[in-house]
């Protein structure tokens, strides 16, 4: 009898605890859902408010190109740009097919016939422009990083070199790279002379302009990162009598990686902004040229198409920063870096 009661009590207790656990689990699930809802709903809500404000304000403003486009018109133009891109691709494919057929027919008639393959020369679509811009900014950024990181490390390690170079850095840092653009253009067209150029001159101009503005934040941040290494870690390396190479690679560089990446992210952000302006100014292919062309075009759709470009520029810029952040998380020991 007693055993039975005990068993019953035991069961009851198990049931009670089990229920508590279920309840607790349910609570955790609920918390998770709430957190998810918060992190998703709030931005969506804010975006909704933004769209409403935009459409209500836009419809009030009359310009010489018609009413400032609201979200709906911009979305329509985004779809149109995508369709234009597809049409262009289709006609390119058709052109290529025709060419292949013609060449095959020629070869069938005469196996020794000389065959010409002409590239398709249709106009660049919106998506071509996006890729051109991304490719250009990454090139310029890469060149800048290859120069700036070693220079920053050297400046951080040697106060004499830093003292020597610092005035130059401080002087060139505030110069808008657009001021360099004419000089870069002239130098490139004078120096880069080739019958069969690997890169177009416009691409080089834009990339070098981006390089000129990406240099400074990386140099300065790397210098600070390298020179502000924790004194205790310096003492550790002194007690261990680490050689110069070991000290630089095992202690100095790893400890400056977070600062270095901070500089790289700033550089890439500035580079992207400058590239668009440079493309507008010099009519080099890319998103900037697209914006300028649409502005000059002056059709009733132009403003909406420019707005599409504005959003594209923003999203690409955000993705580039995210890319750098992922790279930083992958490379650095400090996993706490976030998008801010």
């Amino acid at each position, binding site marked *: 009898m007693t055993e039975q009661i005990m068993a019953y009590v035991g069961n009851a207790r198990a049931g009670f605890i089990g229920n508590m656990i279920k309840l607790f689990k349910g609570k955790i699930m609920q918390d998770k859902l709430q957190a998810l809802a918060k992190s998703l709903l709030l931005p969506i809500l804010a975006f909704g408010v933004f769209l409403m404000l935009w459409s209500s304000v836009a419809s009030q403003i009359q310009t010489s190109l018609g009413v400032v486009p609201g979200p709906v018109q911009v979305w329509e133009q985004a779809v149109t740009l995508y369709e234009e891109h597809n049409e262009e691709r289709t006609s390119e494919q058709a052109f290529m097919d025709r060419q292949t057929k013609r060449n095959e027919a020629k070869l069938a008639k005469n196996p020794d016939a000389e065959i010409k393959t002409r590239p398709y020369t249709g106009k660049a679509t919106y998506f071509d422009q996006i890729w051109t811009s991304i490719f250009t900014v990454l090139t310029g950024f890469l060149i800048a990083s290859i120069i700036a990181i070693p220079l920053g490390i050297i400046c951080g390690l040697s106060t004499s070199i830093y003292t020597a170079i610092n005035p130059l850095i401080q002087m060139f840092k505030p110069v808008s790279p657009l001021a360099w653009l004419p000089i870069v253009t002239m130098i490139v067209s004078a120096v880069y002379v080739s019958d069969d150029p690997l890169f177009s001159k416009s691409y080089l101009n834009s990339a070098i302009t981006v390089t000129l503005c990406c240099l400074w934040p990386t140099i300065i941040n790397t210098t600070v990162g390298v020179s502000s290494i924790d004194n205790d870690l310096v003492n550790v390396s*002194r007690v*261990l009598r680490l050689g110069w190479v070991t000290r630089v690679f095992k202690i100095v560089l790893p400890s400056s990686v977070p600062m270095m990446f901070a500089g790289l992210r700033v550089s890439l952000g500035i580079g992207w902004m400058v590239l668009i302006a440079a493309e507008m100014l010099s009519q080099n292919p890319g998103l900037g040229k697209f914006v300028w062309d649409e502005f000059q075009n002056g059709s009733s759709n132009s403003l909406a198409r420019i707005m599409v470009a504005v959003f594209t520029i923003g999203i690409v810029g955000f993705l580039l920063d995210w890319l750098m952040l992922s790279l930083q998380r992958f490379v650095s*020991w*400090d996993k706490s870096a976030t998008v801010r």
Partner: protein
Amino acid sequence: MKNEHLLLSKVTIDFPTDNGPYRALDDVNLSIAEGEFVSLIGHSGCGKSTVLNIVAGLHQATSGGVLLDGREVDEPGPERAVVFQNHSLLPWLTAYGNVELAVKQVFARTKSKAEMDEWIRHNLELVHMEHAMDKRPSEISGGMKQRVGIARALAMEPKVLLMDEPFGALDALTRAHMQESLMEIQNELRNTVIMITHDVDEAVLLSDRIVMMTNGPAATIGEILSIDLERPRDRLALADDPQYNHYRAEVLKFLHDRHNKVAA
């Protein structure tokens, strides 16, 4: 005195300031025997850390000097390993990696790869950190970081182990654990140790001698107290020991009354 393993002779140091040189230490003389555990105790800013840094070679005495086994100390080196107050582990290396850096530096010519690996593991086991050797400093607690710091220092097989308030940043319970561990290790390895501390109980419990320093400027050694307590020492048993309490009272009295005495 058994032998003069480590000798501080007339150590004086001036730091340059805007108002002329500041004399931090004045005429510090101390002889430490091999295997001896010496604590430096004194108020903040009295120059305890400066003494330690001079022995480590991180600072140079303005006059006087330090002899280790008859050779003058003029630069830092692994035979005078330092355990820093805030662990100073490299955050991008694991516990194993941190000890490895030291071992590779010291034993690159004398140990094979397998021997080095074994030596790293042995030292981490000594401080009871074998379970976390693949963790990075950010993933382990303050006490564990300090254990790794001690393992790194011990792995250099130093002639003198210098500890700069090694447990100062730890909570009381962790500190007590670390003191037990240190006594255990000391019992086994018989290292010569100089330890800086603020903690009177810690000093009496661990030391063979306690060096009490006067306040700066021109700080120097005020008094040296020999602690003749049987080893191994047991914290709980000693709590009621009249001799232990006498030593404790001596140090406390010095710190409260006599630290203002100007050195002659």
